């Protein structure tokens, strides 16, 4: 038997094929109906559907009753409300049945049709959990692709929202969609995304994040070059700014490319806040990042190598605290930072009722006890806490993760080489940032390469243009960086 045999056969042959294919499938129903045929005769119709995924009412209304009432199988467009789709290949048919469609064939024909009667269980639209904000819409994506697309269409009505569908995977093909606004991203970008998705060979993609490596310019980058969002309103904002979104079925998030560094300092509320205040918040987040990465390293450098760098009062205050501390600063910093990471890891997955307990035990009890027993100095605890708070203030968790492992690298360098090591760490980070691209757009756009036009927008200070001047698509540009627009 060929891998993917044709279904253009007689009813009996198809039935046999499907029986074989579903031999070990629980809950597949093969039902034969005797339906009237022209000339007062009767003939058999075969219905194949999955018990759990099918809505019995719809099955009855749209398929069984019309067939029993004598509609011929050539009635396409007749009383079967969801149009039947002719099935050519066995594998396609299997995919349709398992998604809740019903297959039917009438005796004497060689065509099998699929009709949408599914009733897939799915979650209702809920509140965004990882991107909660104070202002703006409160809807989040669900695991149901159709519902997700509905949410998008509702927000961007009109023909300019383009949704391309394709199936990824070799065996278990799952639907993925490429969403963009017509005329905003360049055709090259759209083609690149399509090519990259078509190359995905992984079967059974469960979440859009699994596609991140395939969609990114380089599979492993230190800093995130792909944005993920669970908020349809944000994705629509990004689409209007010329980005491309990718969604797959069963995933409650959309993947947005290209994404540059500045996007990861943007929070969902930035779109709905008073703009000057957004500029302040944005600057604050940049500052938080500058604290989150090098602070422990800076502390170690200053207390170990560069004793003259601090004011005398502060030096003496630090000295007073460090008197009798058993561990040298580099080890102390490493241990404390690690403990903090463990605490964070412990807190993330705990139920909400236990979470605060861990924070209290970890933060207060362990911290206080460590200081009292003289194992660590209050300054070190302060440094680690400030680092932690700065990390938490970053709006993107992927960016926070990047900050975490960069922090360890910089700490190691600073512990070994002092300020020189710190500088080396900075150079390393800047080099990595400068060499990262997202769909061909340099990661540090609009700062490097400088795009003065987008700078104010990046800091959220420029008021949004009041009205679009018309539907003229932007002219074709040569430089990929020019394609970047603030989301």
């Amino acid at each position, binding site marked *: 038997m060929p891998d993917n045999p044709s279904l253009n056969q007689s009813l009996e042959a198809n039935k046999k094929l499907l029986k074989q294919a579903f031999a070990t499938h629980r809950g597949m129903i093969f039902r034969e109906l005797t339906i009237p045929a022209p000339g007062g005769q009767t003939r058999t119709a075969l219905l194949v559907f999955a018990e759990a995924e099918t809505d019995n009412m719809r099955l009855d209304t749209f398929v069984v009753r019309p067939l029993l009432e004598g509609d011929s199988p050539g009635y396409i467009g007749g009383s079967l409300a969801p149009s039947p789709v002719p099935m050519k290949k066995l594998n396609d048919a299997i995919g349709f049945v398992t998604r809740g469609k019903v297959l039917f064939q009438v005796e004497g024909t060689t065509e099998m049709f699929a009709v949408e009667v599914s009733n897939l269980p799915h979650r209702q639209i809920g509140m965004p959990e990882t991107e909660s904000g104070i202002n703006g819409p409160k809807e989040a994506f669900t695991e149901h692709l159709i519902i997700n697309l509905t949410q998008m269409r509702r927000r961007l009505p009109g023909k300019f929202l383009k949704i391309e569908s394709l199936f990824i995977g070799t065996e278990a093909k799952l639907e993925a969609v490429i969403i963009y606004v017509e005329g905003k991203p360049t055709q090259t970008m759209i083609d690149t995304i399509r090519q990259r998705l078509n190359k995905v060979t992984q079967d059974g993609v469960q979440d859009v994040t699994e596609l991140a490596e395939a969609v990114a310019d380089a599979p492993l980058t230190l800093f995130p070059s792909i944005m993920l969002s669970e908020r349809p309103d944000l994705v629509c904002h990004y689409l209007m700014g010329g980005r491309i979104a990718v969604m797959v079925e069963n995933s409650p998030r959309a993947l947005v490319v290209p994404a540059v560094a500045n996007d990861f300092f943007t929070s969902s509320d930035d779109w709905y806040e008073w703009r000057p205040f957004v500029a302040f918040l944005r600057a604050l987040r940049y500052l938080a990042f500058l604290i989150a990465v090098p602070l422990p390293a800076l502390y170690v450098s200053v207390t170990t190598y560069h004793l003259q760098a601090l004011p005398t009062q502060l030096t003496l205050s630090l000295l007073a605290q460090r*008197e*009798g501390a058993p561990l040298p600063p580099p080890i102390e910093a490493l241990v404390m930072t690690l403990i903090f990471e463990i605490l964070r890891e412990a807190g993330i997955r705990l139920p909400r009722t236990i979470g605060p307990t861990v924070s209290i035990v970890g933060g207060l009890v362990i911290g206080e006890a460590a200081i009292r027993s003289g194992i660590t100095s*209050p300054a070190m605890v302060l440094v680690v806490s400030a680092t932690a708070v700065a990390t938490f203030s970053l709006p993107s968790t992927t960016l926070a993760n990047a900050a975490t492992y960069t922090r360890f690298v910089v700490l190691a360098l600073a512990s070994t080489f002092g300020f020189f090591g710190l500088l080396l760490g900075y150079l390393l980070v800047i080099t990595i940032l400068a060499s990262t691209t997202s769909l061909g757009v340099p990661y540090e756009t609009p700062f490097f390469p400088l795009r003065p036009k987008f700078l104010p927008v990046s800091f959220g200070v420029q008021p949004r243009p009041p009205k679009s001047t018309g539907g003229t698509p932007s002219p074709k540009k040569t430089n990929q960086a020019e394609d970047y627009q603030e989301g």
Partner: protein
Amino acid sequence: MRHSKLVAVLLMAFVLSGCWSRRELTEVSFAGIMGIDWVDGQYLVTINVLSPRRGGGGGGGSEGVGTNVSGVWTVSQQAAALDEAVGRIDQILSRSLTLAHVRSIIYGEEMARHGIGPTVDYLLRSVEVRPTVWMGVTNGLARDLMTARTRQEGALSEGPLGYHDAAKRRSSVSPSIHLAEMANILQEEGISLTLPVFRLANRETPKPDGEKSPDPEAPKEIIFGGSGVFRDDKLVAWLSPDETMGQLWVKGHIVHGVISAPCKDPDRRAVFRLRKGKGDVKIKLVQGKLVGEVHIKAIADLNELNCREPGLTEEGAVGLSDLLRKKVEQQISAALKVAQKNGADFLGFGQELYRRDPKMFRKHQATWAKELTTMPITIHVDAKVPRQGQMGPRFHWSQTTPPPPP
């Protein structure tokens, strides 16, 4: 090429610094103040080693968290060279000494009279001593000043530093000068150095029999004010706080402070708070002779007026500014007198001449100190008292002479 760059970076990493050159906070003694004396033909170096309060912070208990300086340990060593003396102090201390946090360096009188040039050489060569260290001079041994117990601070660890800053902010009774500025002045043509003065005075405590006499055991006062005048690198004279103000007027360094001018009745005063002072020195050639001019602009507010004299009321700003003008003129001429008497050109007439006409300055350079002593100098003061400081209804009183005692 790529590899060679990597190798270069790694090489730098290992050559520039590294684990072996680390000095941890707890392995270091921090010097706070440094005193330099000249005793028996040798340098006597005194260092106040700052130590944080024991038991604070990591040592145990949260009550010590964030405590600052309290204890100071003073160490002195004598040697033929400064670095040698510092090295001997380092040998005494359990932790290695660093001069990176020295905030003030004070010369003893003998040292200052002997010449401070060689010490500047050492201080500028040291990689640890900051160029922004405050400099000062005292009228005895710097060591005595540094071991003194004062009432305000636990010790002299932070005191002089506070005084230095206060000199600029608060009182204008003393110049304040950094090491780098001092080194510049010492090398510059036509200007002499002045350093702020710290004096140690025994506090007079009343004895049971009512007499007042110095008590050696009592806490001492450190009096800050006035300045030491140098010719080249040697101390030649002292300026009183009033004379110092005269100097600061001319240099334009008067910022804040209080100036007290006598009324016609010499026991009564008009007191002004300074708001702005501007000074300018000019030198001219009049009939083949060099003539100096000092131009001052002084603006002050009336703070206190305890005399009532005709033409001297709150409305009579003219009378008030006359008082201020006279006082400023008097301060400046007193400073000038010291400068001329000692041939120490700390007001910068020579510098002004050098800037105007370097060739002419060269002609006079050799005999400048002598010429200064006879050079005619005129003082022009433009004084204003724009505010009399009365906000509410005026308070009336009349000046009467107290009745004679019965």
